[in-house]
Structures are given as structure tokens and as C-alpha cells.
């Protein structure tokens, strides 16, 4: 960065975004839309033995698939790209947190009032010293999920 720092301009931003957008969109597409379950593989080496643990997740909420990428650490923690700074004791804890954080994505009845009111249920299973209620974040106004 020292000798060759690039100074941005509106034109340069447009140029580089155009160059990079397609590549980024394909990376996103490759990672998302994992339907029909997803498998995680953990590996370890112990006393000269090679351990492989494959875990398959097929998660639904009210029949609706949860398709975001799930990660399992070798310590057994469940993590998720949709909530990238959190760690959970179990997949159930993760899904409860998703319902807390994104309540509008799990509403059963389209057309139900979505005033941005907050959900007060705890985020079960999340490893936190003093976990409190999570709250709904969004009141969407655009796109196919708009239910207001």
C-alpha cells in the first residue's frame, strides 16, 4: 500500500465494480442456495490416526428450508455465515437465533402485520455469559418478502 496507493474517483469506482461484480456474484451463487441438505466434514489427526467426521444438516422451519451455509468447528461449535460473529452449542440454538434475528423470514402467514415489533424470546444455545433477548431488525418494504 505504501508506494502504489490508488486514489479513487467516481469513474474508477464504477470501472472496478464492473470488473469485479460478475466474479463476486458467481462466488455468492456457488455458496448460497444449498437446498436438499448440506454436509460438513471435519478432519483431525490423532496419535497417527486420521479422523473424518461427516455431518449432514437438513433444516426446515415450518417446512421452509434453511439454506445458508453452516459451519462446524472441531470443538463442536455451530457457526453460520448469515450470523457471522456468533457461535452456538447446537443447530437448534442457531435456528432459534435465526428466528429471533429474522422473524419476518419465518412468518407463517403472508400479510401478517410486520410493524417492526420486537421479539423477546431468548437466543437459545448461544454461548454467551449473559444472553438477553434478541430483537427483530427489519421492516422490509421491498422485494418478494414484503408483507406490510
Amino acid at each position, binding site marked *: 500500500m505504501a508506494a502504489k496507493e490508488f486514489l479513487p474517483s467516481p469513474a474508477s469506482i464504477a470501472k472496478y465494480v464492473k470488473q469485479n461484480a460478475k466474479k463476486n456474484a458467481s462466488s*455468492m451463487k456457488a455458496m448460497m442456495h444449498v437446498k436438499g441438505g448440506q454436509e460438513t466434514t471435519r478432519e483431525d489427526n490423532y496419535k497417527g490416526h486420521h479422523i473424518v467426521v461427516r455431518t449432514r444438516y437438513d433444516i426446515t422451519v415450518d417446512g421452509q428450508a434453511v439454506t445458508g451455509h453452516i459451519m462446524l468447528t472441531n470443538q463442536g461449535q455451530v457457526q453460520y455465515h448469515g450470523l457471522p460473529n456468533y457461535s452456538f452449542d447446537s443447530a437448534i440454538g442457531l435456528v432459534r437465533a435465526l428466528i429471533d434475528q429474522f422473524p419476518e423470514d419465518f412468518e407463517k402467514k403472508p400479510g401478517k402485520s410486520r410493524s417492526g415489533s420486537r421479539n423477546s424470546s431468548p437466543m437459545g444455545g448461544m454461548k454467551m455469559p449473559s444472553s438477553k433477548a434478541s430483537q427483530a431488525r427489519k421492516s422490509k418494504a421491498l422485494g418478494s418478502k414484503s408483507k406490510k
Partner: protein
Amino acid sequence: MAITRPNALTHRSALAQYCDGVKKLKNEFTGPRTSDLGVPGPSKQVSTYDLFVVWHVNAMMTLTPAKNNPEQRNAAHRGPVFPAWHRFMLRQLELNLQRVLGDTNFALPYWDWSADGEGSPEEQVNSDLWKPKGIGGSGDPVRTGPFVFDPSDPSSFSVRIDTDSNGNLEQVQRGLARTLGQDIDTLPNKTDTANALNSVPYDGPPWTVSSSGFRNQVEGWVDPNGPALHNRVHVWVGGDMSPASSPNDPVFFLNHCNVDRIWEAWMQKHGRIYLPDAKAPAKLKGHRINDKLASFISPPTTPADVLDVSAQYVYDSLSV
């Protein structure tokens, strides 16, 4: 000549300038549209500020490597590149803020969250940062400070692109949300940052969230009792700081500026050491010292290029 990044709470004019610049970038449109970026819905122009949101999500969703990567190291997180990629991103924001502010001396302020973390939970949520003259407080939507959304004012601050429960980009039009201290009631404190500062090596096998060393410590995956340091700040702020679209909250950059300061303090103490080196195997591509960092609005750079930034900026204090 290098600029000096100040403490946001002791240099209030720098914080006010930052907020002003963010709003300017939020209302600058250089051409890219949602349809160009794979964001579903009507094709709309994407502001320069919102390009940083999309860039962060894209990097988060770019696995490195794409296959055989069980702990899901990505192009900006969960691996060695975490501090370097965010340093690159912060500098791009800083240069663009300088441009729209017309002030080449503008320097990003940092939020010394571990100083706030020394207070009680009540004191933490009542820090000056969250006051109307800071960056506003908690709420869904936030109702105080410079980032209040007014549906009748198109130039007011709004969240326009975020991610859904599956991590997909989506269009929205709403106010910023924060839930300070609700998902977790305390910030990291000075003991936490001191422990990170003493943590060696920089990083090590398996180069993931299971590694020991400074990078994983400061990213916040090490503490078995919950999210730590950087991660803990995201969780503590909550709301729009929770999903992959977390740059939607301007406090994202104040948090990462402090993470960058901690990294700089670590390098002052332990040397400008980055691992893995260029000879590391291909499975670490994207995280080796000479690999290109995932770029979006500018030419790429490498971790090697961002190790010494003393010609660009310094911090007013490296006491973390």
C-alpha cells in the same frame, strides 16, 4: 505525510466529520446498479457507501479454498487475512471519505471499545458514542443522532441492501437498527485486549477459527465462553451489526479501526510478521502473504502491501 487516526470520543470533530462523510457517500451514485451486483428486485443505483456493504458480504461468501474447507475460511474472515483485508477496506473508505469531504487530512476515527468495556453494562450503553451528538443510540429504527431515517427525506440515512436469514443479499428501505447490550451485556475490556496483544504467533495451523495466536484472538473465536473482542463488539451492538451486511451500521468502521489499531500495536511489539508465507500450500490461497486480497471498488492489494502503513497513517495512541 501520514495522517493521524484519532480516538472518536476525544476528537469529537473527527467523529462529526466521519458522520458527514458517510452521509455523503450514502448519497453518491457512481453507476453500479443492484442488477449488476446480483441483488434481486428492481434495478436501482447502489451508492458508494452501500458498495462497501456488498463488498463485505461478497468477501464473506467467497470461500478460500472453495472446496475441502470444513471450517469455512473465507476471503476476509475466519483465517489469517482477517486483519489485512479489513485494513484494505478501511483505507478504501478513508480515501473515499477524504474525496467527498474535500479534505486529504481526514483520518478515520476509532472507537476504543475496551475503554468503554471497563464500565458497568449500564455505563457501556450510555457511552457518549451513543448520544445524539455521537452516532445515535439503540432502536429499531435508531431515533437519535446523525443516522436517523426519515421516509419523507430521500437524503436521510437508510439501509437499502442487507442480507436475509440465509445470507442472501436483498433490497430494503428502512432505518438503521441497533440493540445495544441486548444479545450480550458487556463489551470486551482492557484485560481482553492485553491478552490479545500478548498472543503469539500471529496465526498458525489449522489457520481457521480453531487456531491459536493473535489473529484468531482478535477476531474473537478463541474464548469458550462466548464471542470475544471483534466478534463480541458486533454481537453487543446487535441489529444491523449482526448479519453479513454489518457495514450498514457506520459503527462497523469505528470498530474495525480499533481492531486495526490493536493489530498495529501488536506489530509494534512483535514485529511486522505475517503468516502464512508465500510458500504455504495452495489450500491457503487467498491468505498467504503475497496473495491478492478480495477487492471490489479498487485494484487489489496483498497482505504484504498493508503490513507497514506508516507512510499513510498512524494512530494517536497505541495504548489498547
